[in-house]
């Protein structure tokens, strides 16, 4: 369970809305890729090990390299980097990926400040 979902335990309606948004975002991508993106972002925050990229295709590696930029370098991502991800995922996939990678980063940060603990969950 994400730190945000855990913190919202006392507000089941808002928690359900958040869980639905999270689920819909993940469901728009291949489940294995979504898990790799989350893992790559968490690894940047020191909350997980980096994904084992041996055996992954070049497109997936490109996506993961981009995801790793989201936590601390989001303003430095170039048009060329974005175009490479769009070429691999297509535009709709790029939109889902952008939301997922950004949400994964924000959720890691919510966990790092112990949002559930602060909220008494």
């Amino acid at each position: 369970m994400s730190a945000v979902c855990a913190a919202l335990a006392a507000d089941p309606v808002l928690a359900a809305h958040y869980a639905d948004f999270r689920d819909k975002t993940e469901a728009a991508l291949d489940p294995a890729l979504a898990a790799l993106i989350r893992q790559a972002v968490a690894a940047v925050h020191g909350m997980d090990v980096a994904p084992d990229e041996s055996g992954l295709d070049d497109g997936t590696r490109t996506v993961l390299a981009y995801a790793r930029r989201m936590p601390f370098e989001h303003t430095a991502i170039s048009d060329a980097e974005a175009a490479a991800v769009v070429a691999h995922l297509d535009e709709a996939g790029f939109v889902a990926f952008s939301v997922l990678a950004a949400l994964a980063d924000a959720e890691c940060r919510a966990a790092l400040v112990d949002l559930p603990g602060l909220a008494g969950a």
Partner: protein
Amino acid sequence: MSTIPRVSSAIPGEPAHFGSVLAHQPAIAESFFALYGRFWGSDVLAARIKEVARMRNARVTECGFCRNVRFDKAVAQGLGEEVVDDITDGYETSDKLTDTEKAVLKFTDALIHDPELLNCDAKTALQRHLTPAQIAELGLGVTLFLALAKALITMGLEPEVMDRTVLPTPAVLEAAE
């Protein structure tokens, strides 16, 4: 940072903006707007407090769109530009921001920038000024503000120029309920 959209609008005739680009993923869009409307519609935490956190996020993440938008509910609750102007580095010494807002800003900085900023004093202040339910809602808000700002920026949806714009506060759509 690009101001040229990196993805096209999915709505014929509309330029690329957050809504028209998110329309590439209708299920995500529908779920997000329902969540965002519910979040802003809740009065557990005042809209003014939420907007203070949103403005801080906008400045730290360098989201020009977020920085120039104001939600009317927060404006009606007294969040004028003279207060917004103080939501910058050094806000701790502001005489326009309340102690509650300063505690909220410290939490916001910790979440979006450096968790070490939420030291014992900052944590105590936050929990003195906000209830657990309010902190949960604030945490949700800052999570969404940060994620959306980064998604918007990385999709190249930053405006080249934008005037300050007061928008209706997101609300729960009747059809979504």
